[in-house]
């Protein structure tokens, strides 16, 4: 993830952003034509525009630091949206049918990821991060595929989306912990800082629960006020989180939970969605800009091993979850296939890893995550569109 020192050929901030958005638009058009999910393509676009490709052949490059704040806005808004859609009541209502599927998902995939991390010699922190990267499926890629393929109308949609919501809750807790652990130092030294970070996030969560309904009138009557004020709250809280060493993403999540509990939920979702899409693109491309192709190539073997192990374990855990949810074997297999793509959250964990003082974690884990997401978001999407063939292969064909 060596960003490289700024050189004379760097683009100014505006051009950098323009280049990133232009590349994003181009790859999205390309991806739509061949059915590749856009998340990994945005990352690839960033790689191409960044120091390790454009820079290597002497073209002016985008300096990642120019876009860091905008990328952070993307992370905050991605998690804000998860929070917005997250309903604790809904989760509790569905817990009897879902808890089995969600538990199998966590208890199979997280340990597999941790084991892979140790296998690759990344140490306890690296293994903990790889555990998260391997565990968390991509809501963005999966939801889009479900809609595109029409699976959204089939019975597997409920357990798939339900498991994704359960993962969101786990990842909020996970990121809070990971954010505090990555900052480094011995566990004993880190303890007060971890306590402050978790305390801050706890306070935000509590405030979201208690204050949000009363804040509704202050978020505004016009759409313009609503967007500006919601953004202000989300960014200030996330920024404060960063400054006390807590995860800005999790802070954004809890602000989203708070706003989601108000009657403004639908309007906010409507108005902020385009902003989230725009900044999320910047975040994905920024991950690509920070990615050193040589470093990714160096972890090609671990990436492939991890994909070959944890792709199937997701299919397995998802299929078991589908059976626990009461689906037929064929529908359960589809539940498993649908949960394979990894994406935005694995990349958020990767971005977190870059701030680790441990060079092994800060360079190898992000490179691994980028390669892993590229492989599995693509393979998972292909597996979904080839589901009929896979069903026939394992003897679960309907005809």
């Amino acid at each position, binding site marked *: 993830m060596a960003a490289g020192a700024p050189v004379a050929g760097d683009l100014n901030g505006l051009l950098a952003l323009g280049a990133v958005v232009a590349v994003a638009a181009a790859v999205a058009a390309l991806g739509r034509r061949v059915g590749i999910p856009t998340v990994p393509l945005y990352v690839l676009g960033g790689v191409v525009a960044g120091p390790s490709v454009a820079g290597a052949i002497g073209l002016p490059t985008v300096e990642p630091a120019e876009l860091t704040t905008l990328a952070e806005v993307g992370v905050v808004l991605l998690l804000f949206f998860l929070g917005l*859609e*997250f*309903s604790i009541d*809904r989760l509790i209502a*569905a817990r009897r049918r879902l808890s089995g599927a969600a538990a199998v998902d966590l208890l199979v995939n997280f340990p597999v990821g941790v084991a892979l991390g140790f296998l690759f010699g990344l140490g306890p922190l690296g293994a903990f991060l790889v555990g998260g990267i391997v565990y968390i499926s991509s*809501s963005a890629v999966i*939801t889009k595929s*479900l*809609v595109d393929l*029409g*699976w*959204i*109308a*089939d019975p597997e*949609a*409920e357990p798939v*989306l*339900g498991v*994704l*919501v359960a993962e969101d809750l786990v990842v909020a807790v996970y990121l809070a912990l990971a954010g505090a652990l990555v900052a480094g130092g011995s566990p004993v030294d880190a303890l007060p800082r971890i306590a402050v970070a978790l305390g801050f996030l706890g306070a935000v969560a509590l405030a979201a629960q208690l204050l949000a309904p009363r804040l509704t009138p202050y978020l505004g009557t016009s759409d313009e006020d609503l967007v500006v004020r919601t953004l202000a709250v989300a960014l200030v809280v996330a920024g404060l989180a960063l400054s006390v060493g807590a995860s800005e993403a999790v802070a954004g999540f809890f602000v989203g939970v708070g706003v989601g509990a108000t009657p403004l939920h*639908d309007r906010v*979702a*409507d108005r902020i969605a385009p902003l989230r899409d725009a900044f999320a693109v910047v975040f994905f491309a920024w991950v690509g800009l920070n990615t050193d192709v040589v470093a990714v190539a160096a972890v090609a073997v671990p990436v492939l091993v991890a994909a070959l192990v944890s792709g199937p374990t997701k299919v397995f855990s998802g299929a078991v979850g589908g059976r626990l949810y009461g689906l*037929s074997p*064929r*529908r359960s297999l589809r539940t498993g296939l649908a949960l394979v793509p990894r994406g935005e959250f694995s990349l958020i964990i990767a971005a977190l890893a870059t701030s680790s003082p441990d060079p092994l974690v800060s360079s190898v884990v992000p490179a691994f995550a980028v390669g892993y997401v590229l492989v599995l978001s693509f393979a998972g999407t292909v597996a979904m569109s080839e589901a009929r063939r896979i069903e026939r292969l394992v003897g679960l064909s*309907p005809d």
Partner: protein
Amino acid sequence: MTVYESDLPGVGKKHEIELDGDERIVVVTHNTGKREVYRRADADADAEKLFELSDELARTVGTVLEGAYFQPVATDTIETMLGGDALIEWYDVPAGSELAGETIEEADVRQRTGASIIAVQHGADVVPNPDPGAGVHGGDTVVVMGSREEVERFHDTFIAGVGDDAADDTEDAADPN
């Protein structure tokens, strides 16, 4: 016939409507308002997408399917046709109407117009099948049934040209939006 509803977090809601046997119509309502309509031939079949509609179109199509929406080009009122010549019409009773402050019997609705009042809405209260002694007040909404001629006669007698606001049609009771 059973309708199953489920949440699709991040997408919207799904309704499944049981048809004959195992066949189901599946309606996915996206948070954006878009509706996708699928058909599933039997429990284990994959849903086939039939069509999708924007929010506005979906409401119009839904009202047509419901049979409550019939808007001849010639009139600007909304009526519900019952087949044959019979129709149902909603009217707000103007304060100056002969009907206001009277009972249905006193106003002699049936004898004078041929149409029947089949419901009276007073504020939030709705009286279905009102008996002849039921009172009607200015500002109430009455639901009238009869032949087109009878309903028009009702309109001319009790609604048209009497009140200051002359609110002859409801916009709230039968408007498809």
